[in-house]
């Protein structure tokens, strides 16, 4: 968040008028973007508290969601400012705001008896008259290897700086500080496989579709730096490998906040400076998968609705309903001596049409049909339409999907005992709703919203070579990793 340093720490309501006016829009959003009221600039790392999700933004904006997909206006914290960040430590939620303002509460739910923001001591700020930095945009990091709490802060001009905080009191530990980057903002630190990663936002905010915001990263063996990018350029010299830039019709990503869902599923919160499908409006909350490639974090993607072959990483075979496949047609081509013609020789090339599911499904059983795996042969029983289930809600960063045989209403469903079947008609029942999460290697995990007669969470799993089932998710196994291939 680019804010000049005349901002002061002020109670909610007063500071708000000093900030950009944020237009909160409750729009019927296009598919695969968060739904509901998602207008926010500089969202804090999303926190889960008593089953709900919370984020706080610049100017006192607060958003809350029951499922992480549909959002609505939340309750302003007692102190607001620019680009706050929140972290949970023990039974407390610590919120740091611009210029080191620090408040804490035991709950983020205003309905909870534990909800009360307490003022803490200022934790950081400018260090002297000529300090070359802008002490806003805090990003909090609890080091999993040491238990130490750090905050990195700074914005727009000057340095990004790291100082240590006391995780018990939230206060600054000492007067040591470490400059780790320059002329960027909205930073945070994460730890991954022995490295500390400093994620910061380069470019400029607050110009809508003309904003050059983009999220960059450098890494270090020490939390205090130096943070070096993939081209060996220190972030103190402007370095930073791209994590997330503008894409599709979304412009200006900023304010990375890690959400580790466990089991190898990582996501991050951010805002887009402009979403061209939402009037190019200013500050739109989003949640994207976080992938890791060659030791570097990379933004994943929202699942894109469409028709796919669903391929098992483990077996390389495709999910299908257990019906007799019909060859897609065409000549045998290229096989001299087998009665075919060599490809390209002789007659004119023709396009073999896609299999007509209406035609081949005539012979399929009318009731439930088992699910299995087979080599992909471009056949109708192997092509799945994956689309958001309208009005079915979602999960953190995604809507529930219905998965049907393309061109039919025959739907993939979980059944009692943790097995699978295809039912002749999609009804919207929870066992027919599917959660699709991109994993850190870019493959996908597919989980039913519920399984009849059990609360156990399971994921679509390839077992053996030719069968699929539901099993407890094992992040170390390829059994539950899937690839969506365009047919």
């Amino acid at each position, binding site marked *: 968040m680019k804010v000049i340093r005349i901002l002061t720490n002020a109670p909610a309501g007063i500071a708000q008028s000093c900030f950009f006016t944020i237009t909160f829009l409750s729009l019927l959003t296009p598919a695969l973007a968060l739904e509901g009221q998602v207008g926010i600039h500089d969202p804090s790392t999303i926190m889960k508290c008593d089953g709900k999700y919370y984020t706080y933004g610049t100017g006192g904006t607060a958003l809350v969601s029951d499922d992480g997909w549909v959002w609505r206006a939340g309750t302003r914290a007692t102190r607001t400012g620019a680009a706050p960040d929140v972290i949970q430590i023990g039974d407390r939620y610590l919120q740091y705001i611009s210029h080191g303002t620090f408040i804490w509460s035991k709950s983020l739910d205003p309905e909870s008896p534990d909800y009360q923001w307490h003022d803490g001591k200022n934790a950081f700020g400018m260090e002297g008259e000529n300090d070359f930095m802008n002490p806003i945009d805090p990003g909090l990091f609890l080091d999993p290897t040491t238990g130490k709490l750090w905050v990195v802060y700074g914005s727009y001009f000057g340095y990004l700086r790291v100082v240590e905080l006391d995780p018990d009191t939230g206060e600054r530990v000492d007067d040591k500080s470490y400059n780790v980057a320059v002329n960027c903002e909205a930073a945070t630190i994460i730890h991954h496989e022995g490295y500390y990663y400093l994620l910061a936002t380069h470019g400029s905010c607050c110009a809508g579709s003309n904003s050059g915001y983009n999220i960059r990263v450098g890494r270090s063996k020490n939390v205090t730096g130096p943070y070096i990018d993939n081209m060996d350029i220190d972030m103190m010299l402007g370095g930073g490998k791209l994590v997330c830039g503008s894409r599709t019709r979304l412009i200006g990503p900023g304010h990375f906040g890690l959400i580790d869902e466990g089991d190898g599923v990582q996501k991050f919160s951010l805002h887009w400076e402009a979403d061209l499908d939402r009037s190019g409006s200013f500050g739109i909350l989003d949640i994207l998968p976080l992938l890791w490639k060659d030791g570097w974090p990379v933004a994943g993607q929202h699942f894109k609705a469409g028709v796919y072959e669903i391929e098992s990483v483990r077996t390389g075979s495709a999910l299908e309903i*257990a*019906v*007799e*496949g019909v060859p897609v047609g065409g000549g045998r081509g290229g096989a001299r001596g087998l009665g075919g013609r060599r490809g390209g020789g002789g007659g004119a090339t023709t396009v073999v049409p896609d299999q007509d599911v209406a035609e081949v499904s005539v012979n399929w059983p009318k009731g439930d049909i088992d699910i299995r795996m*087979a080599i992909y042969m471009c056949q109708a029983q192997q092509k799945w339409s994956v689309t958001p289930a309208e009005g079915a809600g979602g999960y953190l960063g995604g809507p529930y999907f219905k998965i049907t045989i393309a061109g039919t209403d025959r739907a993939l469903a979980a059944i009692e*005992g*943790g*097995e699978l079947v295809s039912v002749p008609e999609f009804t919207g029942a929870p066992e027919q709703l599917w959660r699709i999460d991109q994993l850190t290697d870019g493959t996908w995990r597919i989980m039913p919203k519920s399984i009849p007669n059990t609360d156990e969470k399971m994921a679509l799993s390839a*077992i*053996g*070579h*030719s*069968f699929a*089932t539901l099993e407890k998710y094992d992040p170390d196994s390829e059994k539950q990793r899937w690839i969506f291939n365009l047919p």
Partner: protein
Amino acid sequence: MMISQWNFHRSLGVVWAASLCLGITVVSGSSANDHETFILTPQSAQKAPNSDGFIQLWHLLEPISASGETQNAVQATVKTEHFPGQFTVVPKDGDKVTVNGTELTWHDVDTNKYNINLYYFAQAHRKSPSGALFWAVTVINCPEEMAGVRLAVGSNSASVWWVNDKEVIGIYGNRQTVVDDGISKRLTLKKGRNVIRGAIVNGSGAADFCARILDREGKPLKNFTIHLN
């Protein structure tokens, strides 16, 4: 379909006739020390699964002529009643049935491999392994009820499998035997006797199958015994 071991061995000059003289024990190889045993005469009517959990003791019926490896063709083949009690019988060695006017014999077989080689079994009984339907039956005895387990099979080519008279697996098409190719849904084995029945349909060339039970974690189950009677 891959080139069968039989054709390969034949090219090496396997003394095939000699193996036939050994009954259903097939020996191949180019020297006395270079042989493999695929099908054995059981030395006992009871056996534990091997170290990888494979079930090695079976009743096999000499092959029935059959064609078609697709799902519909195989289902039609195996659902046709070829002989009385085909879905219920637990035969004894030497029992005979008549199929389409041809008398066929049940044989008890054992192996020290993971799989039962139907190609050699058919050859040993002077039957064609191609265009053939093989019936296989065995009984496993469980010390206690075992819930959440799965039957896991591989077959060359298509096959359909039943556990305690319930159809649990169907794998179709021209396929190689791959360990744990077809897996049943979770099932419960009773304490005591459980009957496993398979019907394997082979188009041409190599023919074999393997079967084992997987526990809840997908690991081979070994705490049961296999019985021929």
